[in-house]
C-alpha cells in the first residue's frame, strides 16, 4: 500500500470531516464514534458500519492534526452505560471540510498542511 503524502487526508478522514460539518450545520456540534459510523453508513447507503480500528484510527489522526477536538461526556449524561468520547470540529477542521467538499468538483487529495521542505 502506498504511503500517504504528509499533510494529506485519506478519503475516510475527509468523509468524517464532511459529516461533522453537515452535523454542525444542522445544529449538532458534537458526535461520538458509533453515531458517526451510523451516519456515514446511512449516507453511503451501505449495510455495514465502518470497522472499529479504521474509524478510531482516523478520528485519532484528525485530532492530532488539530481538525477535531474531543472530550469525555458529562458523568450526569451517562445513565449507567459506558461514557462516550465526544468529538467536535475545530475551526481548522471546518475549513478543511469546506475545502474537501469544494474539491469534489475537481478531485484531488485535500491538503491541510504544507509538505516539509
Amino acid at each position, binding site marked *: 500500500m502506498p504511503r500517504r503524502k504528509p499533510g494529506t487526508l485519506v478519503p475516510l478522514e475527509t468523509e468524517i470531516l464532511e459529516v461533522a460539518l453537515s452535523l454542525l450545520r444542522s445544529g449538532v456540534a458534537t458526535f*461520538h*464514534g*458509533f*453515531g458517526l*459510523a*451510523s451516519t456515514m453508513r446511512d449516507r453511503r447507503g451501505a449495510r*455495514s*458500519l*465502518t*470497522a*472499529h*480500528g*479504521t*474509524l*478510531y*484510527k482516523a478520528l*485519532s489522526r484528525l485530532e492530532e492534526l488539530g481538525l477535531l477536538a474531543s472530550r469525555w461526556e458529562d458523568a450526569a449524561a451517562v445513565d449507567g*452505560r*459506558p*461514557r*462516550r*468520547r465526544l468529538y467536535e470540529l475545530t475551526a481548522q477542521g471546518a475549513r478543511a471540510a469546506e475545502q474537501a467538499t469544494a474539491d469534489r468538483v475537481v478531485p484531488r487529495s485535500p491538503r491541510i498542511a504544507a509538505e516539509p521542505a
Partner: protein
Amino acid sequence: MTPEPAARLRTARLVVRWVRFYTRGLPAAIADRRVEEIEADLQDQIADERANGTSDARIALGIGSRLVRGLAADAAWRRRHIAASGRMSTPVFRSVARVSLVAAFILLLPFVAMQVTDQVVWSRFDFLVAGALLLGTGLLLELAARKARHHSYRAAAVVAIGAVFLLVWLNLAVGIIGEPGEPANALYVGVLAVGLGGAVTARFRPAGMARAALATALAQALVAVVALLTGKAQAPVSSVSEVVGLNGLFVALFIVSAALFWHAASRPPARAR
C-alpha cells in the same frame, strides 16, 4: 435489566479482549481511552440495533465483522503509538498479532463467501476449529522460526508443521479414507501421536527430530497399508490410487522433513539466539 443473549455478548467481549490485548504496553491514558471508547461504541451499536429489531445473530455478526475488518488498522495504530512512546513491542506480541491477522484474513474468505452464496456453509463450530488450527499452526511456525539455530532445522519444521496442518485439515473436512466420518480415519490420530511423542522424547533436538519425522512417515505408510488390506480403499469414494497418492504425499513430506532435520544435526548452528 434484560439479560444479553449469549452470541452478541460473547462477540462484544471478544472485541474488548482484543482491544485490551493490542493496547498492552501503551501509556495508560492512551490504552484506557481506546478501551472505553470501544466499550461505549459496542454498547451504542447493540442498543441501536436492538431498537431497530435486528436479530441477535445479525448483531453479533456485525460486531465481529467490524472487529475483523479493523484488525490491520488496529495494528497500525498500535505501531504508531509504540513508536511515539519510545517503547518496544514485545516479540511475543508481534508474533501473536501477526498470526492472528493472517488467521483472521483466511477465515474472512469463507465468511464473505457465505454472504454471497449458499454453496459455502460454515457453522460457528467450523470457524472455531479452523481458527484454532490456523492459530496453532501459525504460532508453531513462529516458534520454529525464532528458536531454530539452523536454516535446515527451520525448513524441516516448516515442512513437518505444514504436513500436520494439511493432514488435520483434510481429515476434518472430508477424511482421507472412505466416506466423510469413516472411523478408519481415526488411525491418523496415531500418526500425529507418533510425531508429537517423538518430538517431545527428542526434546526437539535435530537428530531426534529426524528420527521422529521418519517414524511419522512410517506410521503414515502403515495407515495406508491397513486401509488397503482391510478394503477401505474403494472407488468411487476413495480409490486405491487416491489412498496411495494422498498418503504417499504425506510420507514424502515427513521424509523430506527428516532429511532436513538430519542435515541440521550434522552441521554446527548457523547462529545462536
